[in-house]
Every structure is written in structure tokens, then in C-alpha cells.
């Protein structure tokens, strides 16, 4: 088992007091805190190695290039992907937009279907609405069951080939979250991928892994999906770096194309035409890359690997289970998402008779940071009939004691308002 108290010492920000109280940070699904190792990797880079990559012959440029390439290797290894399958982006949102502009825009046409779900983050809805507008494709949403799981019956119905007669276009893309940021639900990807491939081998699969990668081992090859998007800042890495994993076949066949253009990604440029970089990966790096943040994210991957992702997952599951058990005791609280079954990362709830913002504000006065609102899931909140929810979410430095402090603080809320 992990030792969260010991781990916490690696995170300088967590030693501070907020409103005179010890900081209990439970907003990790929004962004995680960073260990000293990540902070050091970034500051080391700027203090000792900063220079632009690839284009120089001087020592610092070489060092910088080496750090960048090594970092990409460490990050792709973390996902059991080949180095060339990793395209660094600013975050998961930019990665999903990459699939929209680097693949969907050229491969979807009027009547084609993009299948997504009611539990998606806006990042996996809004880009598809734009692509639908431009290509004439339609979006269909897989329903969510009352207890917050993906409705697999509805999914099956929606991928059945007979529902996509030629005049109605074809199912071309499934864009689905791995773990819901509001419900905590872990979607059974293996089952979903198998079912889909039986019905429709050509349909591409994009997984939004933003809430999965901080808490579980993600093996890109084993998953068998075409695209996998993630954010670095939710997995102890810096803000401003994330990635898109792309199946090598799609890079080789050039079905997936660069969507940013400029320097770095080219082989030769003439006034009338440009040849993109021969390297399947380099052609996706337009402009100066964020080397320092890549080094920071690599340090985060190392940090998590040292803890062991199996241990990280077990720790998170224990906290989720414990939180559910404790919150169930409070009669004013209505839990959101599945009570049983696979869930990870977070527990959201509604405090009956109290607005989420008021509860969050009182908890802040107790040093407890959690999130209130719709968590960028407005369609889900509307579908489930919630105005706003409260969400606690975990990382490796959280402990059962943090949950106990939350429960105590919730008592203060009751005394204040009810």
C-alpha cells in the first residue's frame, strides 16, 4: 500500500495552511499538485539546458534535443506505446481537437455518424459539434443509466450496422471517455472495443483518458483503440502539456494528418509547396516544442512508475470506497454515480437543500478544496436533473484522514445553513 503521508512530503504546496487550516486538497480531477521532482525537472531545464531543439549544432541545443527526445521516450513508455505514436499537445482538449482536425475533417461526410456519450466532458462534445457543422455528420449520444453507468444496451443498439443503412451514413467514430470526471464510472473499454469491432471494423475509436491516466495503468497497445487523449497536469505533471496517442498504422497510411503547420514539421519548403518531415512523429511538431514541460511530464511519469500504477490504482479505489461509505452516513447527501462496480478518481454528490457553491465555500473555510458546479458536463447534469454537484477527487497524497476531515467539515455546513 502507498504511504500518503510520506508521499505528501514531496509536494511543497501541500504543506501550506489555507484560511488558517491545514490544506486538504481534494480537487485533483481538476488538476493535481506537482511533486518537487517535477518542479526540479522544469527549473533544471531552464537553469542549465535551455536552447531550441534540432536546429542548432551548439552544445545546449544538443542537450535540449536530447532532453526532449528522452522525455518523449519516457512518456510513451509509460503508456506502453511506441515513441512515434505519441504526439505531445497542450492537454487532452487539444489532443481531441487533433483528431477532429487531423482526421475527422477529411474522413467524415454528410450523414456519417459520430457516436459519443451523455457522460462526456465538454472537451469531447464541443469539437464534434464543430466537425458535424462543417462536414454534415451527425452526433449520437449513448445514454447513461440511472445509476451512472454507460448504457451498454443502448451502445449495442447504436452500433448495430442495420441502423446505419447507406442512406443514413455510416458510424465512423466512437469518441468516449475512459473514466467519467463526474460519475467516476470506469467504462469497460475492452468489452466496448470488442463489440464495436464485431459490427464495424472500420469505425475509429478515440478515448478521452484525462481522468483515467492519473489512477490506472493504461496500455495503449492492449486497449486496441486508434486514439487516446490525456492531460499531463492531472497526473502530477505541469499544466500546458498532454498528449495524443495514435496507432502507428494511421500515421504510416497518412490517414491521420498533421493539423498544425509551420517550422519543424517540414522536410523542405518552396514558395509553391512543402514536403512534410519524413519522420512519422516529427511532422506533428510544428513550431518550438515545450521542452521544459515535456521534461516535467516525463518526471511525473517516472514518479508514478516508481510508486507503481497498480499501487496507485489500489490506493485510489480504497479512497473512493471509503468516501462512499462515509458519505452514505449523511442523510442530507445524495451520492452521484455508481455505488457498486468499477469507479475511479472521484466521488460527486448533491447536498439536499443546499447549493453546491455554498457548501464548497464553507468547506474552503475549513481548508478543504473541492469542486462545485457542473464540472464541464452540462449535458450530463441536465440529463440526470442535477443543477450542480460537489466533487471530491483524489491523488496519491490523499489519505483516509483527509476524508474524515471532509466529513467533520460537512457537519459545519449543516449547522450553518439547516
Amino acid at each position, binding site marked *: 500500500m502507498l504511504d500518503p503521508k510520506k508521499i505528501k512530503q514531496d509536494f511543497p504546496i501541500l504543506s501550506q495552511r489555507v484560511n488558517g487550516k491545514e490544506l486538504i486538497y481534494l480537487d485533483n480531477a481538476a488538476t493535481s499538485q506537482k511533486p518537487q521532482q517535477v518542479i526540479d525537472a522544469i527549473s533544471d531545464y531552464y537553469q542549465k539546458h535551455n536552447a531550441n531543439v534540432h536546429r542548432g549544432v551548439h552544445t545546449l541545443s544538443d542537450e535540449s534535443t536530447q532532453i526532449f527526445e528522452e522525455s518523449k521516450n519516457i512518456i510513451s513508455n509509460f503508456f506502453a506505446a511506441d515513441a512515434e505514436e505519441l504526439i505531445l499537445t497542450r492537454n487532452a482538449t487539444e489532443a481531441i481537437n487533433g483528431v477532429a482536425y487531423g482526421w475527422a475533417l477529411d474522413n467524415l461526410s454528410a450523414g456519417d455518424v459520430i457516436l459519443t456519450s451523455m457522460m462526456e466532458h465538454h472537451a469531447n462534445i464541443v469539437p464534434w459539434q464543430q466537425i458535424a457543422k462543417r462536414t454534415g455528420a451527425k452526433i449520437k449520444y449513448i445514454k447513461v443509466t440511472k445509476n451512472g453507468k454507460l448504457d451498454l444496451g443502448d451502445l449495442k443498439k447504436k452500433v448495430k450496422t442495420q441502423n446505419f443503412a447507406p442512406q443514413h451514413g455510416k458510424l465512423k467514430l466512437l469518441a468516449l471517455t475512459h473514466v467519467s470526471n463526474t460519475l467516476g464510472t470506469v467504462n469497460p473499454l475492452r468489452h466496448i472495443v470488442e463489440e464495436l469491432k464485431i459490427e464495424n471494423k472500420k469505425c475509429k475509436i478515440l478515448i478521452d483518458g484525462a481522468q483515467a491516466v492519473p489512477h490506472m495503468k493504461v496500455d495503449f497497445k492492449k486497449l486496441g483503440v486508434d486514439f487516446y487523449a490525456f492531460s499531463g497536469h492531472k497526473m502530477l505533471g505541469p499544466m500546458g502539456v498532454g498528449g495524443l496517442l495514435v496507432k502507428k498504422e494511421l500515421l504510416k497510411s497518412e490517414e491521420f494528418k498533421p493539423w498544425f503547420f509551420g517550422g519543424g514539421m517540414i522536410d523542405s519548403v518552396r514558395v509553391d509547396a512543402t514536403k512534410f518531415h519524413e519522420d512519422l512523429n516529427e511532422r506533428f511538431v510544428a513550431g518550438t516544442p515545450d521542452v521544459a514541460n515535456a521534461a516535467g511530464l516525463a518526471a511525473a511519469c517516472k514518479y508514478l512508475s516508481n510508486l507503481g500504477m497498480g499501487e496507485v490504482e489500489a490506493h485510489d479505489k480504497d479512497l473512493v470506497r471509503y468516501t462512499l461509505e462515509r458519505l452514505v452516513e449523511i442523510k442530507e447527501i445524495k451520492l452521484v454515480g455508481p455505488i457498486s462496480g468499477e469507479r475511479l478518481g472521484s466521488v460527486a454528490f448533491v447536498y439536499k437543500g443546499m*447549493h453546491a457553491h455554498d457548501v464548497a*465555500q464553507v468547506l474552503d*473555510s475549513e481548508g478543504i478544496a473541492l469542486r462545485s458546479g457542473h464540472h464541464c458536463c452540462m449535458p450530463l447534469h441536465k440529463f440526470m436533473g442535477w443543477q450542480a454537484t460537489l466533487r471530491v477527487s483524489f491523488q496519491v497524497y490523499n489519505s483516509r484522514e483527509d476524508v474524515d476531515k471532509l466529513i467533520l467539515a460537512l457537519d459545519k455546513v449543516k449547522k*450553518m445553513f439547516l
Partner: protein
Amino acid sequence: MTDNLYTEILLDEYKNLQNKGEMPNADLVLEGSNSNCGDNITIYIKVQSPNDKSQIKEITWEGEGCVISQVAVSLLSKKLKEKKIKIRDIEKFSGQDMLELLGLEQISPGREKCLMLGLETIKKANLSTLLETSL
């Protein structure tokens, strides 16, 4: 900060919200929302008389929201009903005026929208002009 925010006066107001409810025969219905938290509000207005559209005879409101947004709308509705108040003057209200109305010295940036929801709904609808042109 929080303990200063939820003052006794504010919590008392919250437990006794004024002018809350639907108005079936309203002259005007204004709707506002705060996309950050899903708060929404509907304001119903009846004017003094066809000859005096600068004053409000009746105002009610309904909606869901946090303590701050609910109390702010409640107090704003009371203010709007005051005899000497012209709607144009209320439309000139700033965040500072709203803070004074609630008896607060300050509010965190994250709660500013809660404070301003009712006032912004009236400002956005351009209430004074609306009254003069549409009724």
C-alpha cells in the same frame, strides 16, 4: 473570508427571501442564468401605471441558486419596489453597490457572478428602455 461572507444578516435574509414566486399577470418576464454553476432566475414585473413606466408596482422572482445569488435578488427586488427609486438608477448599479446592498465588504472572484446574477439580468434586458418601448 467565508465566515465573513455568510453573515447572520445574510443567513436571516436567506431564510426569509422576499418577493419570491411566480406572477401570472406580469407585464414583463426577464430570464437570466449563470452558466458556471447552472443557476437560473426569472424576474416578473408589473409597472405602476401606463403613464408611469419608470417605476415598478410589483416585482417577483423565482429560480434556483446559492445563498449569495438568492439573497442578492431578494434584496434587489425590495430595492426596486421602493417608491423613490427609478429603474434607470438601478441599472447604473455596480458590483460595489450590490456589495453594500448585501452588507458585505468584499467577495471572492469566484462568487462575483452569484452576486451579480439578478442585476445583470435586469441590465442585459435593458429594462428601462424595454418598459418605455414595449408596453
